[in-house]
């Protein structure tokens, strides 16, 4: 309470702002004049101290801030350095340690948004940095201290996906002592690893090392395994997720002893998906011998017994333990968990979209996954590599690399990470069984980057595997013998090759799962342009999702091998464990504030809230906010026409303060950009990290969501003579706040209409959907808008001022 009183008293005091301009070595100081910016900052209202230093984030730098807070009685701190997404927590902590409420700290991003993107225009970069500092100071003067609410964390975890990553994460958490739910879509856990024959680079038997772990998951007292199940709904927030899991019936109870008598009598057959269709299975089956749980399952799409009518009872009669129950129904289990680990894995590329390789047409062209099943002793051919056309063992085998990877024509742009080493391993496996086999590997680059990888590559070359640089342009087939001809260019020898092979193995890449979109929406996650889930920070928070309490493991985040998947899974388990061990978490104080005297109980805010966190009390004619359910997007505050709602730490006054600061001088040369924290601000950061150069006219104002951008902000920018305004958010469907950016779109469209009706050039207001990975998209938008800025005539600026002048009233 004492702290509370203190912060309240500070709020009433005259602001005393300390400004620190960081050089960041030469990262900032190399492209702009930090001393000049500091000098300028000293002239700004309320600033009592302004200095530049080499590394503000260093211990020394932080100690300086702490000292100044005490000595100079600073009650607001502004640091102009890197992105707040990187170091805001660092400086907030420093402020707190010096007794200053952390919400009295503000950052100006003069690195990612200034020095790094204007490397060659020192003067303009310095001017822009001054503007950014001025905006931050304007906001800082209006900052209010805030106390964060504490939320308890349920000490249970959910792992989505039962591949090796999910298995490892579940075991680590369960061994730590937390209750874990593992939800797997397929009838058995094991995932991709269970289908692979050997692992590289050690040539361990894949299922032999995985099966004990699978069994541990099945028997662990802390793990509840839900196979043949799907997560259908996730509600709640960090520490308090309410999850609905649909448990599809197996039609076989746990009494099943896996004796297999039922399979013998089942009259229905179909291709076994586990073996990529290379073997058959029956209507009642187990996907593979080591399946966990070992309980059999009835495929209801095949079974003759539909809608409760027992037409065929052969399996029922064959089952001694009476474990087959066709009356089983789907069930929905509701579980409460504190953390979620997403380990949903990846799909493989389907090479039938590449007509030149003839996959699906020529029987002897197979994929690397089909190869794994063929070479596997537990597979359909009992470990004999046989040609599908005549079941003979091939004498000449060709591997084609990068099928579906590293291609801008067909497939994906990225490298799938595992295929090079997988092929080298496969070639050695063939050599081990049939040493006389001639093996050709057609590649672009061999990427043997990991521990022990180069040795394996060397070994393969030593065993006589021929590596040819240059992918075949085409595979042709001899229709009689089904032998293949691979035709292409050897780019090392500069000559065309035409090589005959008995069998060709397409080394297919990994791609994001097709159902990733569903998981993304349920958990409000982001994905990169390749479709994989996006981590909170690529270097320093590689397993955290941007959404609190959610972590990634395995190929869901990017293609990776088994070792990396397991490493990441243990990391994710540790990260989730940290939260659960603490047992509570504080949530950012960015929830809405209501001014009841202004509220007309119109209910508009209730409608736009993506979290249903606002309820309308009709009797009392006022709204009520459930703070714990609020996500903090601020779209309610933007929707309120009466100014009865605002968002803490992103108040109307603060944002207007920033707009006014930036439009004070040369507004007609500027682009005022509103970027959402999660996608477009991060995208602009990414442009900076990648040193993408764009015109220095833009000034970015950060909001948590583009849904926070009230029309009056845009109107005010124009009324104060801004040349152009950019509103930028996450892609529709990818909004960090479920669907708040739909409101952004509506509001911008309404303004476009208004501008058109008033005879204004509506190009001056732009809307951009930009993900955290689309730095270039942001940069090119700014280049495009710069040309609009150049074209806008002074009379147009004046006209816009006239049209929007109402926006200047009432603040």
């Amino acid at each position: 309470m004492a702290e509370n009183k203190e912060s309240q008293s500070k709020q009433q005091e005259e602001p005393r702002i300390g400004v620190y301009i960081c050089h960041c070595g030469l990262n900032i100081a190399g492209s702009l004049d930090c001393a000049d910016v500091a000098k300028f900052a000293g002239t700004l209202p309320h600033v009592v101290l302004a200095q530049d230093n080499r590394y503000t984030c260093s211990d020394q730098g932080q100690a300086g801030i702490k000292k100044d807070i005490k000595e100079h009685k600073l009650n607001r701190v502004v640091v102009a350095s890197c992105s707040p997404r990187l170091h805001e927590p660092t400086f907030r902590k420093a402020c707190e340690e010096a007794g200053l409420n952390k919400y009295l700290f503000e950052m100006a991003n003069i690195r990612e948004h200034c020095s790094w993107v204007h490397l060659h225009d020192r003067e303009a970069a310095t001017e822009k940095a001054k503007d950014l500092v001025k905006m931050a100071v304007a906001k800082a003067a209006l900052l209010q201290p805030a106390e964060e609410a504490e939320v308890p964390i349920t000490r249970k975890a959910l792992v989505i996906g039962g591949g090796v990553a999910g298995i490892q994460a579940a075991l680590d958490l369960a061994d730590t002592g937390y209750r874990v739910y593992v939800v797997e879509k397929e009838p058995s856990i094991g995932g991709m690893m269970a289908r692979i024959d050997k692992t590289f680079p050690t040539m361990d038997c894949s299922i032999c090392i995985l099966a004990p772990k699978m069994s541990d998951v099945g028997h662990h007292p802390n793990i509840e395994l839900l196979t043949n199940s799907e997560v259908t709904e996730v509600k709640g927030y960090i520490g308090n997720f309410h999850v609905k899991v649909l448990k599809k019936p197996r039609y076989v109870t746990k009494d099943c002893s896996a004796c297999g008598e039922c399979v013998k009598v089942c009259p229905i057959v179909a291709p076994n998906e586990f073996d990529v269709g290379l073997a058959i299975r029956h209507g009642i089956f187990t996907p593979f011998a080591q399946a966990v749980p070992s309980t059999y399952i009835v495929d209801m799409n095949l079974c003759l017994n539909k809608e409760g009518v027992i037409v065929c009872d052969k399996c029922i009669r064959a089952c001694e333990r009476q474990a087959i129950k066709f009356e089983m129904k789907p069930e929905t289990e509701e579980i409460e968990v504190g953390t979620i680990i997403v380990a949903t894995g990846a799909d493989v590329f389907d090479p039938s979209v590449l007509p030149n390789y003839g996959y699906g047409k020529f029987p002897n062209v197979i994929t690397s996954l089909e190869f794994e099943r063929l070479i596997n002793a537990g597979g359909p051919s009992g470990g004999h590599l046989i040609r599908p056309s005549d079941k003979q063992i091939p004498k000449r085998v060709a591997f084609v690399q990068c099928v579906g990877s590293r291609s801008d024509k067909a497939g994906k742009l990225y490298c799938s990470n595992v295929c090079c080493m997988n092929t080298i391993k496969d070639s050695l496996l063939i050599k081990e069984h049939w040493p006389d086999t001639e093996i050709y590997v057609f590649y672009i680059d061999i990427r043997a980057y990991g521990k022990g990888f180069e040795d394996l590559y060397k070994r393969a070359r030593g065993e006589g595997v021929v590596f040819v640089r240059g992918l075949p342009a085409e595979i042709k087939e001899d229709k009689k013998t089904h032998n293949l001809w691979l035709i292409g260019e050897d780019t090392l020898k500069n000559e065309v090759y035409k090589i005959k092979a008995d069998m060709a193995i397409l080394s297919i890449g990994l791609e994001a799962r097709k159902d990733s979109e569903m998981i993304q929406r349920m958990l409000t996650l982001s994905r990169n342009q390749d479709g994989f889930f996006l981590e909170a920070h690529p270097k320093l928070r590689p397993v955290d999702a941007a959404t609190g309490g959610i972590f990634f493991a395995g190929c869901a985040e990017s293609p990776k091998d088994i070792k990396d998947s397991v490493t990441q899974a243990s990391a994710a388990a540790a990260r989730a464990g940290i939260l659960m061990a603490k047992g509570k978490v504080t949530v950012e104080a960015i929830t809405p504030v209501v001014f009841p005297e202004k509220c007309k109980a119109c209910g508009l805010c209730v409608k736009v809230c993506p979290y249903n966190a606002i309820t309308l009390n009709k009797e009392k004619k006022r709204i009520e906010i459930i703070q714990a359910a609020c996500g903090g997007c601020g779209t309610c505050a933007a929707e309120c026409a009466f100014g009865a709602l605002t968002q803490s730490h992103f108040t109307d006054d603060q944002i207007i303060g920033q707009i006014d600061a930036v439009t004070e001088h040369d507004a007609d040369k500027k682009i005022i950009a509103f970027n959402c924290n999660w996608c477009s601000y991060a995208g602009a950061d990414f442009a900076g990290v990648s040193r993408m150069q764009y015109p220095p006219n833009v000034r970015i104002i950060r909001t948590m969501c583009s849904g926070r951008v009230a029309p009056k902000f845009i109107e005010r920018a124009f009324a104060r003579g801004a040349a152009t305004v950019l509103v930028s958010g996450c892609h529709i469907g990818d909004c960090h706040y479920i669907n708040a950016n739909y409101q952004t779109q509506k509001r911008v469209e309404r303004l476009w209409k208004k501008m058109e009706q008033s005879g204004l050039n509506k190009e001056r207001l732009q809307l951009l959907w930009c993900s955290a990975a689309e730095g270039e998209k942001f940069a090119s938008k700014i280049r495009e808008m710069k040309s609009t800025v150049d074209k806008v005539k002074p009379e147009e600026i004046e006209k816009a001022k006239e049209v929007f002048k109402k926006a200047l009233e009432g603040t």
Partner: protein
Amino acid sequence: MPERIRHAALDKETIKQVKTEIHLIKDECKGCGYCIEYCPRNALEESDEINARGVHPPKVVDESKCINCGFCTAVCPDFAIFVVEKPNEKDEKHAKS
């Protein structure tokens, strides 16, 4: 498993095909059509002929479709249909062992 299946199963010859003979006692049939409607493999359809009771009895469309589930026998109110499984070599061996 999301992959599309492009190759035929290598062990498809090992599938034990059930061979059956469907026996119809046509004159017992009263033409209710239950066997036709309930056959899960759609192995039966109505014939054009008229039996002693003046109705159209069923006829076999494709005997190879039948997997001897016996449901037609179970639903026939007039005991007019039954199926006999033809033994094949493998089965005989299995029975002896």
